[in-house]
């Protein structure tokens, strides 16, 4: 279980990194390495060139923009985000999710950008991005561009990046006032990838009803899945068992992935159970509009 041979590059600037990725055949970027390194050690990934992003400064910043958008550099370490006061204020769901990303030890190296680009269908951070209407920022030879996370998550472990592009940031719009969030997952062991995970944001209106719901499911489809039907069902509803039951029931129509270890019916069932629980928790966390 030794990595295949590759040439190693450690650019100091983003432009250098992009030039390397654009100019070298079969080049792959390396972020925190918590997914890439196992893939290399097991030789599932066999790049000829590895472009290490860890020496580039300025990609690990966390900022709250004037409109309240939380902008996180792609190379921000998961562990740093987990204890960053701005993340706790602007996106509490992310803190809750981060507590379930691997282990504290792997979060010391793992980055948010690495997780979004690895795009494991059950991973926590892509799910948070999906549930937060996040926008990703990519940089390439032609400059920077933004994309919604929905467009970015192109398919099974396939991020919408060209080979010469680097994910540089993810931007999460400010939460509406009073929003209650919950991130919940089920895994066989603590720290494992989830079988199913759910991310929920509920926004109250002035009357305490649900003005807006954002619901995303992980581990069900090839990429994080938004549930527009459930979101619509909750709009204008009074928070409570009836509304949540109705919303959770929409998962019955899901057609989840099936693999040799986990059958589709179990993922579908878990989706409904976890959604119901997450909605109840999120509602309990709602404040005033």
């Amino acid at each position, binding site marked *: 279980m*030794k990595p295949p041979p*590759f040439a*190693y590059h450690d650019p100091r600037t983003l432009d250098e990194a992009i030039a390397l990725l654009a100019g070298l055949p079969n080049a792959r970027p390396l972020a925190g390495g918590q997914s890439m390194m196992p893939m290399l050690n097991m030789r599932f990934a066999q790049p000829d060139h590895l472009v290490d992003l860890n020496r580039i400064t300025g990609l690990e910043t966390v900022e709250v923009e004037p409109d309240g958008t939380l902008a996180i550099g792609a190379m921000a370490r998961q562990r740093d985000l987990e204890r960053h006061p701005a993340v706790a204020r602007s996106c509490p769901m992310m803190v809750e999710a981060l507590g379930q990303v691997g282990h504290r*030890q792997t979060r*010391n*190296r793992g980055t948010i950008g690495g997780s979004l680009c690895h795009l494991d269908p059950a991973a926590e951070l892509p799910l948070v991005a999906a549930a937060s209407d996040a926008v990703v920022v990519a940089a390439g030879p032609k400059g920077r561009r933004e994309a919604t996370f929905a467009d970015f998550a192109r398919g099974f472990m396939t991020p919408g990046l060209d080979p010469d592009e680097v994910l540089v940031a993810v931007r999460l719009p400010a939460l509406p006032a009073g929003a209650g969030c919950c991130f919940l997952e089920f895994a066989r062991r603590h720290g494992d990838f989830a079988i199913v995970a759910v991310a929920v944001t509920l926004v109250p209106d002035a009357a305490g009803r649900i003005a807006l719901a954002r619901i995303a499911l992980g581990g069900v489809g090839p990429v994080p899945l938004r549930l527009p039907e459930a979101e619509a069902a909750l709009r204008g509803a009074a928070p409570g068992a009836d509304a949540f039951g109705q919303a959770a029931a929409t998962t019955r129509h899901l057609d989840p992935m099936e693999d040799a270890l986990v059958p589709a019916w179990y993922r579908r069932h878990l989706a409904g159970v976890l959604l119901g629980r997450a909605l109840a928790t999120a509602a309990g966390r709602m404040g005033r509009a």
Partner: protein
Amino acid sequence: MTETLHTETLHAETLHQVALTVNGRPVRLQVPARRTLAEALREELGLTGTHLGCEHGVCGSCTVLMDGAPVRGCLVLAVQAEGCAIRTVEGLAPHGAALHPLQQAFADHHAVQCGYCTPGFLMLALAILEEDPDMTEAEMVERLSSNLCRCTGYVGILRAVRAAAASWPRTRPA
């Protein structure tokens, strides 16, 4: 800075020069890019206390501290350690000196059976105690859950870390 290694089989793999400190001492490594930090510690520096149990980041036997934070030594390339301060189990107690209090706690509470996971658990425990010796029991369990032990059922390990926490020096009054 790179140079090419020529063996009798004429195989060529670029070697990288890496300067870092290991257990407080500056060292220079010459390694191919693909060599992991854990392997380099073992093969280049002879620090075989850092063990490899899975080489895919699950078991934690290769845990070392990188600039104070515990990391999987199998998931970091040696070249990435340029300029870093690495601490390994060999640095806990100098050769011939008494055991570090954490090591002593592991002995006192039967936290060791085969000893293969032990260096990784020691470094993990060291890091979490240095960061916060006042963690709750639940937090301690959560933080120790990143490493696997197959012999002890973790009973002795938890007791040892709990005991070490109780007498851990606090930098500021609790």
